[in-house]
């Protein structure tokens, strides 16, 4: 543990792992992506980054969550979970054009130990589509976190926030358009959370979200290997908020959502 006078910022400057026990990254991916270079996109490399930074657990989906190749991707995530037990947890992904790639695939992954569901509308299927309904129902019934890729436009999903109130819904890339596009949903719905990952790392955004939505409604996500872990956690560690609020964002909220020991 750091001395009383050593802040989290000091630990970053000293290039040492953050001293908070149990930091959770709620948003990482596995695998490569044709359009971009992504060195270090395998599970071993990402666990090495987690060790350097001091992240205990990361919840992972595969890049294939954006494609029809979800079964391949989910298998890769399961392999990463086996290779790094307790360090890599899994989000199940579907391409719900039929039951096999939809609800059945989600059940297969959850039965194998995945802890949540990741939906990405790059597959051109809206989260409100009827084909997602059995998946939403299952997540809600089991109280599993659902991570939604978002980029503003959240009004289109409000019916889901109203209907599926037992599953924590994490809005990825919160603030990516404007803070105003995100804050009201986290304020209005107790089970809707803000996931921080955003490539732009706008100055003052973390402080704004904490002030308006509260630190208890925010979880940390890095989007590694789309973005470097150190960069994304740096914007939380150096944010002008209290150390307890940083702890809530980096540790407590995610562990509560995942049902992990505090």
């Amino acid at each position, binding site marked *: 543990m750091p001395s009383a006078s050593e802040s989290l910022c000091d630990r970053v400057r000293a290039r040492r792992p953050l001293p908070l026990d149990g930091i959770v990254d709620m948003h990482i991916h596995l695998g490569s992506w044709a359009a971009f270079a992504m060195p270090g996109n395998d599970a071993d490399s990402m666990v090495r980054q987690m060790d350097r930074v001091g992240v205990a657990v990361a919840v992972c989906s595969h890049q294939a969550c954006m494609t029809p190749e979800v079964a391949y991707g989910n298998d890769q995530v399961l392999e990463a979970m086996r290779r790094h037990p307790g360090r890599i947890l899994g989000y199940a992904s579907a391409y719900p054009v039929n039951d096999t790639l939809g609800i059945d695939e989600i059940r297969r992954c959850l039965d194998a130990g995945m802890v949540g569901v990741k939906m990405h509308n790059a597959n051109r299927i809206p989260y409100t589509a009827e084909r997602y309904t059995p998946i939403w129902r299952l997540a809600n019934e089991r109280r599993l976190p659902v991570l939604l890729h978002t980029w503003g436009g959240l009004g289109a999903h409000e019916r889901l926030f109203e209907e599926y109130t037992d599953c924590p819904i994490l809005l990825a890339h919160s603030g990516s358009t404007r803070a105003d596009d995100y804050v009201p949903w986290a304020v209005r719905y107790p089970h809707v959370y803000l996931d921080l990952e955003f*490539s732009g790392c706008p100055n003052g955004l973390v402080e704004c979200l904490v002030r308006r939505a509260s630190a208890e409604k925010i979880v940390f996500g890095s989007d590694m290997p789309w973005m470097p872990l150190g*960069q994304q956690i740096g914007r939380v560690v150096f944010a002008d908020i209290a150390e307890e609020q940083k702890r809530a964002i980096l540790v407590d909220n995610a562990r509560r959502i995942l049902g992990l020991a505090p």
Partner: protein
Amino acid sequence: MKLFDARIVLGRAIDLEPFQSSDVESIRRALDRYGIERALLSSFASFRFDVSYGNRLTFEAAAADPRLIPCPAVLPDAVGEVGDEDALVGGLIERGARCVGLYPKSCGLAADERVLGRLLSAACVRRLPVQVPAGELDLLPMAGLAARHPDVPFIYCPYPPGLYRDRNLLPVLADTPNLHMTINPPFGLNEGIETICARIGSGRLLFASNYPIAEPGAAIGHLAYADIPPGDLESIAFRNLEGLIHAVRL
């Protein structure tokens, strides 16, 4: 970790959130808070509104704190706006500038010798670094400009919405020795600092916060947790930029 920041911007911009703005006092607080020892300072007004008005703000702000080094915007004398380019560059250096900003998109300039040749030749004579935010000019024309003026150090600064992780970046950097790049968000190449250090060397990367557009802690965290030797980290954190600034011919 000693930091020399290659890009801090004064003022506000209409396409950013209200909290992404700065004034002299907030910049001074940021320097203290993040432990930034020196910084190159530009102003939004100099490339979003009026070059000479914005540069006046830049010089006034820099005069308020010795840690701030003016990085005024420059234009070529295309239509008689700025006068002789050699005199322009000399005058800016005399007033304390150790780098200048070039904003082709905002200022309606093509990366063409007929447009920029004389201005960049003037920068070359004084070895004055030229900073170009990435949103102002794509990487390949940027590299073309740098190749045509090999004695001008160019500083390319990532700017949204690009993420600077395409597969062109490393080959272009490797082939353009006077092209430097800052590591501020949205530079998003995972293990990018490590990869560039290993394949090209640490001499081409510069620390920049891009405050108040970006949270400085992001660039600090990115650099601090990069798996590179301490010497490479020092080069990126301050030595490379220090070297470029000291090489300016006064």
